[in-house]
């Protein structure tokens, strides 16, 4: 046997114990579990192990290589930070679901075959739905229902794809698939739902902001990033992903600018950031894949940090609309400080994780001389700063004073510790990127800190800030919701149903009348006197072809008299006829 456990098992088995623990012991247990998983990761040699033979197929629960390891490291670090942030939480549903969720994500990352990948994929969908549901408001229950429907659809696409793929290739192995043929198309579609690739993206900003303070932090990290991993593994260099990624980036920025709810702004920003990774995967060179993986790493750190600070504001004020917030810097300075580190990181300021990772993707486009992609990525870097880097902190902590004076001392200490930890990590990755670069799938020769790059990036960002403040009056917050592609199932479906209801109901009624009334009645009528009925039928045909008035009258008379008096058979005759038929049947049967 091997010297390590698949990390998914540690989390999933560990999650089962959480409801039975109480108080301090529970807190310590939740924080120790990811720490244990981290030590376990250090002990995992490259190669495939934990193989289960199933008929002709192999289920591989631990395929360890550099690509799976970099995602595993960040997932475990994230689970650690999340566990600290959640330490005060007493709701067992949230805690168990969160650990199950983190565990199944790790299961996907280490799955060497498509079947175990699919199983963990579905556990992930279930656990994350529980996290949305756990807020237990009317809005969150509805959002959770929509969320699971979308993910069941995605899972179904993935399953169809996997079945077709296995039928075609005869192998369950999960390696580079590439977009060719229907099977790979379905698999890509299944991955695309979880990666929130536009237009399959509206579930994310619909559901995440409805979750709890703790739940949203976990949600922001795992689903989309496991999808990024599976895309990087299965579809690296698939050109269409480049364009889909660019669409996500632009869409994320536009909707984040229009949105009012702070956690929804950050959710659109998740789509925007995942867009960068998807572009990297689409470009598919070594530098680009490194960029996508390292950006996923840094992104989880700063997006969780931003979600945590938004969660802290929600925890203390009970509000999440930016139009109802503002001026919080006066009483929440630590939250503001950590939030600013996250904001600087996501925008890609030098000395933060965003600068040392995101720029790899743009550079990959630059080296390949894909002009339009490079230009749009650069626009997007400015746009990220606009919506996530300035808009979020500015409207929550500064802008117009809302009069709210939440007392930061009432915030559970562990929440601040978790934010501090992630802020430290963001800066660590920014100042000492070699630590992360060593973990990346391919050798890195990339040097982020050149005078040209630092000055260019700062120019881009500072002049974006200038544009923000000059156009501030156009960015006034409005109390609106923004129509997204979820319109199709939240509104469009209603309209479709009301359109369809008339023809469908008409067809249903007609069919019922014909099948259940008309046809049986005719059968009854004929069986009353089959011979007479045939006669009437025949004369009907004759009369309609060449009949005079008298013939018509005679027919009507016959119809009125139907069924008439039937010839009565004596019992002996009837028995004799039956006997004859029986004898004929026997002869036919035995001859």
């Amino acid at each position: 046997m091997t010297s390590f456990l698949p990390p998914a098992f540690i989390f999933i088995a560990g999650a089962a114990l959480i409801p039975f623990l109480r108080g301090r012991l529970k807190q310590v247990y939740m924080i120790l579990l990811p720490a244990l998983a981290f030590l376990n990761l250090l002990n995992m040699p490259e190669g495939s192990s934990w193989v289960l033979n199933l008929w002709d197929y192999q289920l591989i629960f631990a395929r360890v290589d550099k690509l799976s390891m970099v995602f595993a490291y960040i997932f475990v670090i994230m689970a650690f930070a999340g566990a600290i942030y959640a330490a005060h939480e007493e709701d067992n549903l949230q805690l168990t679901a969160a650990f199950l969720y983190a565990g199944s994500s790790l299961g996907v990352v280490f799955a060497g075959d498509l079947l175990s990948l699919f199983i963990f994929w579905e556990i992930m969908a279930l656990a994350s739905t529980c996290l949305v549901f756990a807020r237990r408001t009317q809005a969150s229950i509805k959002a959770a229902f929509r969320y699971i429907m979308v993910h069941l659809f995605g899972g179904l696409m993935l399953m169809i794809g996997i079945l077709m793929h296995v039928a075609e290739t005869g192998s369950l192995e999960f390696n580079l698939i590439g977009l060719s043929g229907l099977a790979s198309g379905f698999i890509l579609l299944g991955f695309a739902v979880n990666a929130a690739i536009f237009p399959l993206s509206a579930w994310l900003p619909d559901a995440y902001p409805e979750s709890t303070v703790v739940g949203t932090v976990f949600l922001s990290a795992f689903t989309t990033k496991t999808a990024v991993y599976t895309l990087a593994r299965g579809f690296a260099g698939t050109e269409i992903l480049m364009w889909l990624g660019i669409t996500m980036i632009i869409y994320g920025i536009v909707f984040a600018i229009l949105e009012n709810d702070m956690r929804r702004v950050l959710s659109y920003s998740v789509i925007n950031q995942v867009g960068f990774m998807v572009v990297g995967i689409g470009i598919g060179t070594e530098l680009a894949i490194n960029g996508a993986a390292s950006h996923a790493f840094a992104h989880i750190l700063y997006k969780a940090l931003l979600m945590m600070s938004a969660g802290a504001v929600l925890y203390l004020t009970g509000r999440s609309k930016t139009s109802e917030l503002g001026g919080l810097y006066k009483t929440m300075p630590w939250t503001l400080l950590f939030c600013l580190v996250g904001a600087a990181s996501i925008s890609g300021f030098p000395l933060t994780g965003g600068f040392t990772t995101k720029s790899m993707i743009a550079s990959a486009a630059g080296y390949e001389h894909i002009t339009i992609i490079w230009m749009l990525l650069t626009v997007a870097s400015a746009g990220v700063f606009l919506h996530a880097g300035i808009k979020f902190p500015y409207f929550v902590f500064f802008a117009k004073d809302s009069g709210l004076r939440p007392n930061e001392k009432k915030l559970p200490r562990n929440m601040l510790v978790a934010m501090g930890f992630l802020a430290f990590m963001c800066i660590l990755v920014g100042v000492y990127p070699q630590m992360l670069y060593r973990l990346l799938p391919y050798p890195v020769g990339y040097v982020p800190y050149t005078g040209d790059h630092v000055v260019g990036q700062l120019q881009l960002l500072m002049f974006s800030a200038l544009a923000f403040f000059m156009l501030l009056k156009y960015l006034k917050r409005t109390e609106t919701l923004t129509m997204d592609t979820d319109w199709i199932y939240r509104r469009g479906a209603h309209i479709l149903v009301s359109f369809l209801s008339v023809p469908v109901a008409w067809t249903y009624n007609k069919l019922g009348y014909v099948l259940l009334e008309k046809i049986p009645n005719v059968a009854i009528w004929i069986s009353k006197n089959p011979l007479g009925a045939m006669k009437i039928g025949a004369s009907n045909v004759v009369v309609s072809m060449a009949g005079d008035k008298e013939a018509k009258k005679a027919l009507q008379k016959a119809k009125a008299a139907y069924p008439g008096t039937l010839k009565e058979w004596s019992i002996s005759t009837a028995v004799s006829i039956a006997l004859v038929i029986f004898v004929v049947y026997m002869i036919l049967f035995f001859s």
Partner: protein
Amino acid sequence: MNKIIEYFERPNVGKAVRYLFYASLVLLLILEFLVEKHPYFPWAGFPAFNAVYGFLSCAIIIAVSKLLGKFWLQKGEDYYD
């Protein structure tokens, strides 16, 4: 921490921060001439390219988003209820 906040709330400091911001913009434009450039595309090496590009793209993003929102995407908060 509270002292820092009080310090920043003084009116003169607010003004100073703004001037510092403008000064940093100018400084960045000057610094550009002191570093060795290696742009991916020849036109990306023009002086102040990044500054102009960043400013314009933000302005365009804001304008396009707002127009889309106003005429199409933004609805009342009870739209789906």
